[in-house]
C-alpha cells in the first residue's frame, strides 16, 4: 500500500507556559476552517491553557476572555469565516448529546477544539489532530501529537531538525 502522507507522530516537551504559547501560536497559523483538534489529558494537564492560547493567537487578541467551557459546554469565538468552537465534553453522557450540542454540525466548517474528546465516540472526525497532554515532572508537560491525513506536512515546523 502506498500512502502519500505518513501518520503524524510527534512528541514535544513544554517546559513552561511560554512553550505552550509557542506551540499554540504555531498551531494557530497551521489550522484551517474545518479542522478539529482533540485535546486529551487529565485535570490540570493544560488542555484549557493550550486552547486559550490557541484561540487568542488565531484571533490576534491576546487579552480575549476565554473562560472554561466546562459548564457552558461550548464557547464560540470569532466571526465570519474564522469561527472557533471551544468545547468541553466532560459533562456529556454520550455521542447523541454531541449532536444536540450542534458540535457535529460544526465539524468540517469551524475550527473545533475539543476537550474530553473520548465522549465523541463514533462522531470523532477521522482526520482530527490529537494532542495528548501529560505532566512530565515539575512544570514540564509533554504534548504527544498524532494525526492522519496531511498533519505531518502541515506541522513540519514543529518537527525536530534531523
Amino acid at each position, binding site marked *: 500500500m502506498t500512502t502519500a502522507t505518513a501518520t503524524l507522530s510527534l512528541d514535544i516537551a513544554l517546559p513552561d507556559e511560554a512553550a505552550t504559547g509557542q506551540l499554540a501560536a504555531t498551531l494557530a497559523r497551521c489550522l484551517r476552517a474545518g479542522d478539529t483538534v482533540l485535546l486529551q489529558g487529565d*485535570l*490540570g494537564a493544560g488542555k*484549557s*491553557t493550550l486552547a*486559550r492560547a490557541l484561540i487568542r493567537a488565531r484571533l490576534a487578541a491576546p487579552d480575549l*476572555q*476565554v*473562560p*472554561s*467551557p*466546562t*459548564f*457552558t*459546554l*461550548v*464557547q*464560540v469565538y470569532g*466571526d465570519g469565516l474564522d*469561527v472557533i468552537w471551544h468545547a468541553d465534553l*466532560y*459533562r*456529556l*453522557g454520550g455521542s*447523541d*448529546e454531541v449532536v*444536540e*450540542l*450542534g458540535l457535529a454540525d460544526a465539524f468540517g466548517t469551524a475550527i473545533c477544539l475539543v476537550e474530553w474528546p473520548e465522549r465523541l465516540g463514533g462522531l470523532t472526525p477521522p482526520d482530527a489532530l490529537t494532542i495528548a497532554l501529560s*505532566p512530565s515532572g515539575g512544570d514540564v508537560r509533554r504534548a504527544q501529537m498524532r494525526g492522519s491525513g496531511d498533519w505531518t506536512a502541515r506541522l513540519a515546523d514543529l518537527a525536530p531538525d534531523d
Partner: protein
Amino acid sequence: MTAAVTTILGIESSCDDTAAAVVRAQGDTGTILSSVVLGQADLHAAFGGVVPEIAARAHVEKLDHAVEAALAQAGVGLSGIDAIAVTSGPGLIGGVLSGVMLARGLAAATGKPLLGVNHLAGHALTPRLTDGLAFPYLMLLVSGGHCQFLIAHAADRFERLGGTIDDAPGEAFDKVAKLLGLPQPGGPPVEAEALHGDPSRFDFPRPLLDRPGCDLSFSGLKTAVLRERDALVAVQGGLTVQDRADLCAAFQAAVAAVLAEKSRRAVRVYSGLNPAAPAFAVAGGVAANTVLRTALRAVADSEGTAFVAPPLRLCTDNAAMIAWAGYERMRLGPTDDRTLTPRSRWPLDEDAAPMLGAGRRGAKA
C-alpha cells in the same frame, strides 16, 4: 395610590433544569406562590459532575408538567395569570427554544402579554425579590460557569466590573474535589475536609491579586493543588487524611483571599456612586460556603455596605427569578410580541443590539 397586583408565570429551560414558577408582585415586592424545578433528580454524581439536560427533547417532555405543577401549587389557573415571562437567552439553544415556544403558545391561547427575559438578569435581579434591594446595588453573581461582579443600576442596566478569566469558583471546587478523590459536587466535601485542615501548610498562589481590576482566575490554583498532591504522593506513596484536609483548607483559604480582595475593589468602585443604601449581594454556591461567606461579609462590613445572600435554591436556576425579572421588565415598558425568538448569546452588559444570526451557541457570557 395602591400599585396593581400582578401575577406572573415564569418559565426557564436554558440550561440543565426545567422550571416553572408563579410570582405575585405589587410595587417593589414579590411573593413566590410556587417554584418548581425538574431535572435535579437526574444529577449523576458517579460521573464526576452534573450531566446536563442539553437535549431540547428532555425540556419539552418536562415543561408542560412543570407549568401544570407550578399553577396547581400556586392555586391559580391560567386565567389568573397576568403575564408570561420566559428565558429567551442566553443558553443552549434547544432548551431556550423549547421554553420560548411553550410561552408563545400560552400567550397566544390566553391573550396575555409575553416577556422575554435574560437568564442572567433573572439571577442579577433576585436580591430585589428576596431582600427588596434598591438600585444601584453590587452583585457577585456566581452561577454555573459564571463568576462576575455587576453593578445593577436598573432592571435593564447592568455594569460588569470584572469576572473570571478561566474557571469559576464552583468549577475549581469541583475539580479540586475530583483531584483529591472527593465526591461531586465538590463544594460541600472540600469545605467539610477543610474544617480539619491547616490552611497555612501550603502556600497556594493568589491569582491576579498583583493586577489591578476585578478580574478573577482560579485555574492556576487547581493546578497548584494538583502539583502539591503529586509531590506528596511521590514522597509518601499516597495522601494521608491530614494531607487531604490541609490541601482543602489551603485551597479554600486562597479562594477566600482572592474573592475577598477582588470584592473589596468592586465595593470601592460601587461606593463611588454614593448609593443611598449601599448593598453587596452574593448569589450562588459561594455564599453557601461558610468560610467564603464570612470573608465576603467581612469585606462588606469593613466597607460600610450591607451584605445580602439570597437563599441557595433561588441562586441556582429557577423560574421564580424569571417571573420576577419579567415583572420588572413589564414595569419598564413594552412587552414582546409573539415573534419573540431565542438568543443563545446575550451578554448582560450589552445594549439590546440584535445578535440573531450570529450563529453562536451555548456561550452564557
